């Protein structure tokens, strides 16, 4: 106990010593725990954070659990022992992170959830959610589908990994949009491709075999939408099936421009990174911040692609 207190004091002394050096420029130390760094969206978030950190003198450590909820918890605990000022978590599993973020709160560390939120119980231990919500992205895609199909037709979904926040919410958002707009759209298949472009190709191939008529397919991210598009092209059914994704990847925006894809919900990921650093700075200064800070989701379709192209990543 006393050893622990001693070490806490030592670290605090060291922190003050280092604080005095760059005078006022010292920003918060931020520990960012991704869900999986190997994704263009995360690259854009990280770039937004790094760029904005330069303006606020923030120091960021990036950690990548590669979709492993157990590793993510260990990394959050690692951030606690590093005594970061702010821990930012993009939850792999909304419930699995709760004990770790509780611990962080008890240690006096601010927790910000980014892009994938925790459970309602977990939210009590967090300061804010920053991101584009996967439900809203699904909803945006749902509205695009309703418009493209004139409110009626058969739709298949190629999903991310079963049970993950983004997977569950993107489908739910799409279905809510169908319901709210009073469309009579039949959901014929919901099959997982685990965020893999190659698996999406295989799964879509089987969905095409099973269903002679498909009006639209929703890939839970753009790489999977493009994988599904490959399968559709291989069977020469591109005139029949309209392809939708989420992200706003450069490849997807190019495919929308050339008429191969029909739409994507563009996440302004760079902004999410920027907002995160600003919120972390404010928290560290003892300021109050909004509980929910949303980066906009932009529907990119053949009509709007010219307007949004520069934001695609």
């Amino acid at each position, binding site marked *: 106990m006393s050893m622990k207190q001693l070490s806490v004091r030592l670290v605090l002394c060291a922190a003050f010593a280092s604080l005095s050096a760059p005078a006022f420029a010292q920003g918060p130390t931020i520990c960012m725990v991704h869900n*999986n*760094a*190997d*994704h*263009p969206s*995360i*690259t854009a978030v*990280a770039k937004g954070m790094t760029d904005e950190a330069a303006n606020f003198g923030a120091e960021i450590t990036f950690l990548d659990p*590669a979709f492993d909820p157990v590793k993510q918890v260990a990394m959050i605990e690692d951030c606690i022992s590093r005594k970061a000022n702010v821990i930012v978590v993009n939850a792999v599993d909304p419930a699995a992170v709760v004990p770790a973020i509780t611990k962080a709160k008890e240690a006096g560390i601010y927790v910000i959830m980014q892009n994938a939120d925790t459970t309602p119980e977990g939210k009590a231990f967090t300061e804010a959610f920053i991101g584009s919500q996967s439900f809203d992205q699904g909803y945006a895609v749902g509205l695009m589908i309703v418009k493209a199909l004139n409110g009626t037709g058969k739709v298949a979904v190629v*999903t991310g990994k*079963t*049970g993950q926040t983004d997977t569950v919410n993107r489908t739910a958002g799409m279905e809510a949009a169908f319901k709210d707009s009073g469309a009579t759209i039949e959901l*014929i*298949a*919901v*099959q*997982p491709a*685990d965020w*893999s*472009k*190659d698996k999406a*190709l*295989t*799964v879509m*191939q*089987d*969905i095409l*075999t*099973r269903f002679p008529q498909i009006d639209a397919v929703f890939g839970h991210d753009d*790489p999977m939408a*493009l*994988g599904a598009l*490959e399968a559709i092209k*291989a069977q020469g059914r591109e005139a029949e099936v309209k392809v939708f994704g989420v992200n706003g*990847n450069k*490849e997807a925006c190019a495919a929308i421009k050339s008429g191969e894809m029909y739409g994507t919900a563009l996440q302004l990921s760079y902004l999410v990174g920027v907002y995160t650093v600003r919120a972390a700075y404010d928290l560290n200064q003892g300021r109050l911040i909004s509980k929910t800070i949303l980066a906009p989701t932009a529907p990119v379709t053949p009509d709007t692609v010219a307007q949004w192209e520069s934001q695609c990543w």
Partner: protein
Amino acid sequence: MKTQESEPSGQTHGHPNPVPPAKSGGRKRHWSEPLRNHTAVLLLIVLVIAGSFLSDVFLTPRNILNILWAVSLLGIVALGQTVLLLTARFDMSVAGVVGLAGIVTVLAQINGFGLYASIAFGLGSGVLVGLCNGALVLATGANPFLVTLGVNLLVYSLALSLTESKTLSATIPEFTVLGRGQLFGFLHYSVILFIALALILEFALRRTILGRTIYVSGLNEVAGGLSGLRIQITKMSAFVLCSTLAALTGIIMTSRTTSTVASAGFGMEFDSIIAAVLGGTSLFGGRGGTLRTIVGVVVLGVMNNLLVLLNVPSEAQQIAKGLVFLAVVLADSALRRS
């Protein structure tokens, strides 16, 4: 001693008998032995019959060709894994190598190298990882599972740094022929490559000295009566082969989807082992072959295909896959004990 060496040879081609002939010759076979030896074939028959009743598109030529195209990539990885399993070792780094090789190939293209040179770079990355795996395992005697798991992490991180975590797209249009091209307009090149490799490897395993040394090194290297050096070289070749075939898979996958990410091969490390063991290659070395792996891979492919055709909810799909995995491992252990 002699029985172990003669085990791989002298058997009919497609159906290697895993039980040494000298042992089983004098004893009456248990009635369930053929059942246990050909689990994958039986499972395939059951799946095909069930599938043909449950789905009217399942047995169409197009669907069958689709299944083969879908599994050919995992199949090529599983062939390498099979050879390594015969030496009683396995390679968890294939997942990382699939990603790395695709990325190296695409990066070479982006930097102005030609089609063949870029493919050579990709394959070369696999050879290097294989040499690393082999050297680490053989020099230290450490557990191959853990060593290659560690190497996998390094390879994955290397691939992430090379791409800065971005998706990279191939720049040479002809490159897509490898993954998408079809012979006679219906049979994908990757399927032909998979079957051809399986045949060549099966022949090499049973008819060459190197191949037979692979079986011996898996069964009992000391009793093999061979010089230590030759055993070491044999095992090294198995590691290099496994990693190179994973690299080939990564290159074909990139060609099929025109772009790649570091995580492209995730899951293939386990799936390739499941396919090999399902086919009848033992986790404990010395028993099995690459033709059997074709059956193992096709069973997995048919299962995945049926899960989608029957619109099985994704949560239930995990149960099916988990059960198959457990059944395969338990059956292999039971076979070993008998």
